[in-house]
């Protein structure tokens, strides 16, 4: 073996030792390792989103904390079709028709002032409950969601976004994100005062966490609503939440079309 060849061989071993010790040890034992089941979404979560989070409502306050006046759609790139819906908004009629949850659907729920509680329903399904409007969202990892009747929260397909892989199959350094794509929703409102999204809308969301001093944590949810019927361009908002120690402030309240 030449000097260069030996150098490469030594470095290859060194690299293997640095990047994949477990795999190297397995090979040395001589027997192939048993086929392992792929890790569940829960087991392979790059970030921990579980727990109670409170919405910190300091952006779009006028459209979130109080019900804005009819006809106020500032900041939403609506179509003319949508403007007809905006001008026809009748909260009493929504309430009477049983549509009081129209502003609590997946296109808007992360903007609703309240608390969210994130848990694992099973190893591949993350569950997000809201106290405002008592809604439940299910983020399903892996297989595509089974078609079901349209609902306010629709069907949500989830995946983890991870930092780029390091050699040896090791996970990349640092935290990752949760990406969720939701379709199959009932038509709803982006804002309480009837600014609409249609049942053809797609909601794409990214959940990121940010560590804060004194063990605090922020959650940032970036929401992109695409709607070929009612939006001229994607409606993009980012909502932030503060982590809470427990559920002592959890206060379930029903949907309301008028408040």
């Amino acid at each position: 073996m030449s000097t260069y060849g030996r150098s490469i061989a030594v470095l290859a071993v060194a690299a293997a030792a640095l990047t994949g010790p477990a795999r190297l040890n397995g090979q040395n034992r001589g027997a192939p390792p048993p086929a392992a089941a792929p890790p569940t979404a829960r087991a392979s979560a790059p970030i921990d989103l579980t727990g109670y989070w409170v919405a910190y409502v300091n952006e779009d306050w006028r459209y979130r904390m109080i019900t804005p006046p009819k006809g106020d759609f500032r900041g939403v790139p609506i179509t003319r079709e949508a403007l007809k819906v905006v001008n026809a908004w009748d909260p009493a009629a929504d309430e009477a028709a049983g549509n009081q949850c129209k502003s609590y659907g997946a296109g808007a729920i992360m903007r609703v002032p309240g608390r969210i509680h994130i848990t694992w329903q099973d190893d591949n399904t993350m569950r997000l409950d809201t106290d405002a409007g008592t809604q439940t969202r299910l983020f399903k990892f892996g297989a595509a969601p089974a078609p079901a009747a349209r609902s306010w929260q629709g069907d949500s397909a989830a995946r983890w976004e991870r930092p780029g892989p390091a050699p040896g199959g090791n996970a990349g350094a640092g935290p990752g994100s949760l990406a969720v794509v939701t379709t199959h929703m009932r038509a709803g409102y982006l804002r309480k005062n009837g600014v609409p999204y249609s049942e053809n809308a797609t909601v794409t969301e990214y959940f990121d966490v940010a560590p804060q001093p004194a063990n605090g944590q922020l959650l940032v949810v970036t929401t992109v609503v695409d709607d070929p019927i009612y939006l001229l361009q994607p409606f993009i908002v980012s909502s932030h939440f503060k982590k809470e120690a427990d559920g002592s402030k959890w206060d379930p309240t029903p949907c309301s079309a008028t408040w």
Partner: protein
Amino acid sequence: MGSHTLLGHVVALRTVATRTALVVALCWSAASGTALAQSELVGSWAARNTEDISRDSYPVDYIGIPLNNEGRTRALTYNESQLSMIERQCEGWPPFYFVQGPFGLKIWSETEPIKGGTISFTIGGWEDRAPITIWMDGRPHPSKYAPHMRGGFTTGRWEGTTLVASTTHIKAGFMRKNGPPSSDQATMTTRFYRHGDILTVLAVVDDPIYLAEPQIISKSFQLTSAPISPIGPPCVSGFEGRKASEGVPHYTPEKNPFVDELTKLFRVPKDAVLGEPETMYPEYRKKIKASYVRPEACKSDCGAAPAR
């Protein structure tokens, strides 16, 4: 051994050394994983302005800024005619404005030529906001006695694919263009999350002088092929009719004539207009439920009619 043979060995050894160094560098880089776990931030990022459009069009609108009493009192003294004073025309806005204002971002980097590492990212400025340079080369922040600059002093580090930037040495200025103040002790921690063509920026501003709790700002930008061209500073001031002898335009806090404007227009409670921290939590919505009466129709600032 002839000279040519000797030369050949030397060349071979140097080649081996070079290749070995290269392989070592690649192995080390790969083992650390850091180079692969970053995000590309360079480019033009358009502001879609579909959320929290910069609220500086009402003289008293401190909604969403958790001011303490001192900050609120000082904010109420602000008169926008101050900007006609020749010495204040070019003050510009603090670094927070890059995520609060209506503009997009142009981000570029400076690359170290030997190893290809990033020395710094720069967020281009506007005529009223200085550029922000995020130093990635491990340099420390300057002494607390060092001069404070309009763009502050910023260092960055990667947490996986997220760039985390820390800004200090900011000049005193304003949290929003209509007067809520920020002190020269304010600091900002900014996180840049990239998801495909969406860049979400989370800025947390701490100010021990004027804020009761950290101000949290988040905004998303979209990658665009249309180049964003940052302009200015410098800013050129000119005489706008106000003489130095006329003093600084201001209001006495309890007599600011605009304090009720948002309440009259949109029935926003005064506590919220003045940035009381409790107004940013869901409990406040329940507190005002019984007293809030929604205006029947929007009469001002309602949104532009769609073109198609």
